[in-house]
Every structure is written in C-alpha cells, then in structure tokens.
C-alpha cells in the first residue's frame, strides 16, 4: 500500500498544492527587449525613456520595524500589535502605521513588498545581503548595488556616481563597498549631515594658496611618479581614478554647488522638514538628507544612499513616534513622523519636477523586528519577514506584493529574497540582472544571483 494514499485514492498532497502554483507573468526577455528598444545600454543622459536613470536608497539603518511602519497588525494581540494604531490608505484594505499619514495618501505611487525574507539576524550579514543582493561569503566580496550601478550607468557630470548621505561606514565588521569592483565605484561619504547646522562637505574648497593650476601640476606629478615608479601596475591603477575624480570635483564650482542646500528656497526646505517652526537645521535630518539626495539625482548622480540612523531600538517603541532615541532636544526628531514627512516630500517633489519616473526611490532596512514586544517594550531583530517600499522609476505603484502571516512573523504569501530585490532594482535601472561582471581573478559574476527572480508585477 502506498504510504501517502488516502482511502479515496488520491494523494493528500494534491489538496495542499491546489492554488499554490503561481501563474507566470510576461516573460523577462520581452521586458528587456522593450527596454532595449528605448535605451541603448548603458543608458545615456537625456534619454526620455521611462526607465530609471537614478536611484535613491533610503536606508533605515539598524532594522526598522515592519509592524510599526508598513505592515501593521491591528487585529493581533496587543503584545504584537504594539503601541501604534493603523490608518487606511488610498488603497482599499491596505493599512499602514498611524504615524505615516502623508505616506498613506501617496500609496497610489508606492509599491509595498511585505514578504521580504532573509536568514540573517545580525546587522553585518543582513546589511551585506540587502545591499549587495548576495549572501555574504568569505570566498568573495560582492559590490553594493550602489557600486555596481556606479560602475555601469553613465554619469553625465563630475559628481561621484555613488554618494552616501551622510555616510555609510562598515557596521559590526560589515564590508559594504565596491567589493571586487574598482575603488572608484565605492560610495563617497559626505562625512557631514545635511540635517545638522554644522553641515559642510569637507575638503571641497582649495587649501589656502592653492589653485587649479597647482592642483593640475600636482596631479601630473603624482601620475608621472606612478608611471615611472618601481611598481608594475597590475591593472589600471584605481588610485589614479580616485585622484582624477577628486580633481574634477574640486575644480568644478557647478558640481560642488550640488551639495549646497542653501540654494534651495526656504519653502522647499520646509517641505522636507518635520516641524517648520523648529530650527530647520536642527529638525529631523532625514528630510534634509532626502532633499540633498534629490539635488544630486537631479544633477545626474546614478545612486544616492540616504543612510538614516536610529532604527535599531530594542527599547521602548513609543519613542519612534516622538523622538530620536537618545536625542533630547525636541519632539521634531520623531523618527517615524520624520520618515513620513521625508517620503511625502521626496516623492511629491520628484513628481512636481517631472523626474519621479526616472528616479527609483527605495526604502529598505537591515531586517524587521520581532513581532512580540520584548520585556523592555521594544522589538529585537527579525529577518524572517519584513517590508520594503519602492516608488518612482518605473515602479507600478498602488500595490502590495506578498504578505506576512497574522502576526507578521513569517511570509504567508510570495517570499521575496534580497536577491530578488536586487534583480528587480537592476531591471528597473535598465540593467539586465544576468549581465556579468568580471572579478580581478577573472571570474564572471552576475549582477544578481542566479536563483534570483525579478518581481515582474512591480514593473510599470
């Protein structure tokens, strides 16, 4: 007798599987064919195709809670529901945190993915996986998406192609950077926060007594020394490229002006700040960070990361809604309301300037937080299921992809891996995820992992 037969003669498995198969959508080949007709890769500036030519990654550093932002569980037990309520959005039946009222009004432009899943619950691995699309391995250091994009997309100006606001330093030993790509593709950290009154990108102005001609001579001298020197160059020295980049940036007043927020009208600056009555320079910095990101993509920078800190809070959750943990200055530092304001301002502003279609906006984080609130009223790390939001740049807004289970613990429907995300992001930026890069050791590596799948419903 067959082990798994029921008495009615059919295997029980059939019951389970019915409806479990997902229908396949439009083939990717078709998608790329369409893209190629409108854009010759790599894309060129001024191309009026619908494809994104820039990406703003709003990174909520430390792991933002899916349950308290984009995937609330109003019907769950209180220890899972948490202290915040939920509100309806422009999408019928879709609710998000009560502290995201402006975002709720923009949901027709935003796509939520509520079923992202990763195996890594520690920051370093989680960060590496989400930012590179590859599971970290000691065998090879993968480049961040920002570096890959900087490597492949053309940048019309002299601004760096991959910029981090205010910085993106390695966390818990995580190596986030250019991986096996040249160091010139590594993110340029401003090292200064546009939300702070002391904001200034350092070392852009000539040192006293120096001018263009002297810097030019210095550049020629060091290039000559490298050329004549004892070291046989293994490849084109990337040190030269960094030097060239620095030289071009310093000598371009127009490029440097991109970093100057003072050029923005007061009302624009206020649009991005949580509490206009509060001192602009002291308001929650994510708004001004996003404003600077907009200025940069407007000038053709392909990849900007807004690295907003403070989300790794294991203690009292309620502080997310009123102030930045550890910051006692004013209620205008509220993390979630600040994010709400920033998302709304950024997406609205990009749309007003008619560049939302070519700017991909991503809201991502290390992982979610534990559904059950811990003994200190906070939530701990939870990579099993969390949310990511996307807008602009060819994203079909107004939809929710995947879902979590009743308590937000696990994926209930349509698991999405960080690899799938990277595959989708590259596709939106007009880069074929199966395209191969070559390591210095001569190994071909796909942009996105072999087993990753593009979330086709996301493509407009």
């Amino acid at each position, binding site marked *: 007798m067959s082990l798994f037969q029921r008495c009615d003669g059919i295997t029980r498995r059939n019951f389970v599987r019915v409806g479990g198969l997902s229908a396949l959508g439009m083939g990717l080949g078709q998608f790329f064919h369409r893209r190629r007709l409108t854009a010759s890769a790599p894309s060129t500036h001024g191309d009026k195709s619908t494809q994104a030519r820039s990406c703003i990654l709003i990174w909520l550093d430390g792991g933002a809670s899916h349950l308290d932002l984009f995937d609330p569980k109003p*019907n*769950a*037990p*209180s*220890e*899972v529901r948490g202290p915040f309520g939920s509100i309806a959005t422009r999408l019928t039946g879709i609710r998000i945190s009560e502290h995201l009222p402006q975002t709720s009004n923009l949901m027709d432009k935003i796509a939520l993915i509520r079923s992202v899943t990763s195996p890594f619950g520690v920051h370093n691995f989680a960060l590496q996986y989400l930012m590179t699309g590859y599971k970290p391995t000691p065998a090879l250091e993968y480049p961040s998406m920002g570096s890959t994009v900087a490597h492949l997309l053309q940048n019309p100006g002299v601004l760096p192609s991959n910029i981090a606001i205010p910085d993106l330093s390695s966390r818990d030993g995580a190596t986030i950077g250019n991986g096996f790509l040249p160091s010139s593709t590594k993110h340029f950290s401003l090292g200064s926060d546009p939300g702070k009154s002391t904001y200034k990108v350092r070392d852009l102005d000539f040192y006293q007594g120096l001018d263009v001609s002297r810097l030019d001579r210095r550049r020629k001298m060091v290039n000559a020394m490298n050329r004549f020197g004892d070291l046989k160059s293994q490849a084109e020295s990337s040190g030269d490229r960094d030097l060239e980049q620095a030289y071009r940036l310093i000598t371009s007043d127009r490029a440097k002006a991109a970093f100057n927020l003072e050029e923005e009208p007061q009302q624009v600056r206020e649009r991005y700040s949580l509490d206009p009555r509060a001192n602009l320079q002291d308001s929650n910095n994510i708004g001004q960070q996003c404003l600077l990101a907009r200025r940069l993509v407007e000038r053709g920078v392909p990849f900007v990361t807004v690295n907003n800190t403070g989300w790794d809070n294991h203690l009292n959750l309620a502080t997310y809604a009123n102030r930045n943990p550890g910051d006692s200055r004013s209620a205008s530092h509220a993390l979630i309301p600040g994010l709400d304001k920033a998302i709304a301002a950024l997406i609205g502003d990009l749309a007003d300037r008619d560049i939302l279609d070519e700017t991909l906006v991503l809201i991502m984080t290390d992982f979610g937080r534990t*559904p*059950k609130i811990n003994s200190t009223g906070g939530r701990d790390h939870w990579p099993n299921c969390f949310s990511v939001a996307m807008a602009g740049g060819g994203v079909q807004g107004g939809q929710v992809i995947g879902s979590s289970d009743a*308590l937000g613990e696990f994926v209930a429907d349509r698991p999405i891996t960080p690899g799938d995300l990277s595959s989708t992001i590259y596709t939106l930026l007009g880069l074929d995820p199966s395209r191969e890069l070559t390591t210095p050791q001569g190994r071909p590596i796909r942009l996105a992992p072999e087993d990753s799948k593009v979330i086709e419903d996301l493509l407009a």
Partner: protein
Amino acid sequence: MTHQRLPASRRLRIVLLSTWAFALTAVNSWGQSPPITDLAFSPEGTSIVACSQDGLQVFSWPALEKQRSITVSFRNLHCLAFSNDGQRLALGGGNPSENGGVEIFSWPQGKSLMSFLDHEDSVMEIAWSGDQKIVTAGRDRRLIKYDLETEERVQTYEGHSRGINAVSLLPQGAMVTAGHDASVRVWDDDSGTLLKTLSQHTQPVNAIAVCPAESALPMVATAAKDRTVRFWQPTIGRLMRYVRLESEPLDITWLNDSFLVASCVDGRLRCVDFENVQVVEIRPAIEGWAYAITVHPEDGSLAIAGSRGQIRRITLTLPTTQSND
C-alpha cells in the same frame, strides 16, 4: 475531606503512599502503546477514564483493570472532562495540523451525542460551563464556546498569539487561559473580551488549576515549561508567588487549598506547599513524561499517567487532616 489549613509545624508530615498498581493501555499491532494525555475519574468514582491515540479507555478504580474502550473520531486525543452533573463526557483532540474539535458522549453509556470540528488544529483542553456549555482551547490560538442544547457556537475568543494549552472557568464569570505564547490571559466569559494578559512566565504554559479554597478573589496555579508553578489572583492580575521545580510540570491539580501536586517531565510527581512555596515531596510515578494527574474526589488518592500508556495509582495519606474529620 475538609480544606482546613494545616499548622505549619505539621505540614511536612504528609505521607504519600503508593500502591504499585499499574495499568497499560492495549498494546497495538506494532507492539507500542501511545501516551495517555489526560485522565478523569468517573462521577461515581469507581472507574477512571483515560484518553490517548487509541481512543477513550475506561479502567476500574482502584484495581486499574481495563473495562472498555470507546472510539473517538479524531486521531489525537488531548483532553477530557465530565460535565458537572456527570451525565456527559467531552473528549477533545484533532488531526494535527488539519483540524481539531470536541466529541460529546453520554455517561455512563458512552454513546456519541454530537461533535464539533471547528478548530484548525487540535483541541488541547476543555472546560465545562455548567452542564450545557463547553469552552474548547485549540492549538489554532482560538477558544470556542459551544451551547450543547442548540449545538451552536456561541463565542470565539481570539487573543493568544500561539497555541492554547489550558482553560479554566472561575466562579464569577471569568475565564483564565494559558498557552504556548507564555501568557496567562483573563477573559470575560460572556462577552469574550480579553481583560488581562499576565506575562511573567518565560516559557509556554502547560496547565492551569483553580484553587478549591473559597475566597473573594479566586486563585489559580499555572505550570509552565520554565519549570515554575505560579500562583495568581487572576481577576486583579496579581502574581502572588512562585516556585521553580527541578523538572518541567506538565499537569497540576490541587489536593486541598494548601497543597498542589504536579506531574512532571521526569515521570515524577511533586507536591508543593502553597503557603511557603516549598516542594515538600517528590515521588517517582511512571517512566517517561507524566502528562496527566488527577485526584480522586473522595479518597484523595491520585492517578498519574503518561508515556507508553502507563497509569499509576498513588494513595495519598494526610494524617493530620484525616484526624480532623
């Protein structure tokens, strides 16, 4: 037996005498006996009923001779309970990960009267509310109240975030539940409103036992995987005291208003003095896990059951209280 409190000096003189009578449920065709998961004395006190994957079995008491078996419609059985009038027996269980429910039998005839199969996973515990209503607690995180007269669901209680292991009804219309989410919850029995969530347990809670003592504030004990037995006044949300055992308690029952016995993962029973939360007695009972313990309503002897279909009778002698009779 009275519920008179023992003087502290005499309390340690409790003597537990065991009769080494053992019963084993029928050995199945594979030569194996499934574990007994719950026990109850029949209303007349002359037999004891036990449930397992082999169905419902009735043994004579105190001889523990098998009298009969009754087939139940679920694969796994986890709980049983007699109605207060002793006329009906409710059996709870299910087909794991598929469904769960309760089947009602007439007693002593053992005739199936009705069954409900509304849970999405096994029913782990049943509580009677009078003789016409029952509440079932499921692995599917829900409790359902049925009216047996109309054969209808009258209430669903949602709020536990994990499977529920235990449910007890308190005299004044409150219901206490506990389960895998390590919480003890207090509900308004009628409206289904969740009143309180008590979260001092750090691991899943296995059992609840209501203290027989009459007082304005009802008291319950809970036993959990964190190896503690905790004593509560649940209606005001107060944890009174707790004791940590050497082995995880799987089931608990009160002997009187001063002493409580627990059957544990190591097959032993432990007797806890509520007053000073000391373990006053540890006795081996069965081999393996002791899932169920119950006390005979009249003679105060105990039945413990668990792994491989074992049941043991342990006679309990409380010399001081008996002399007060």
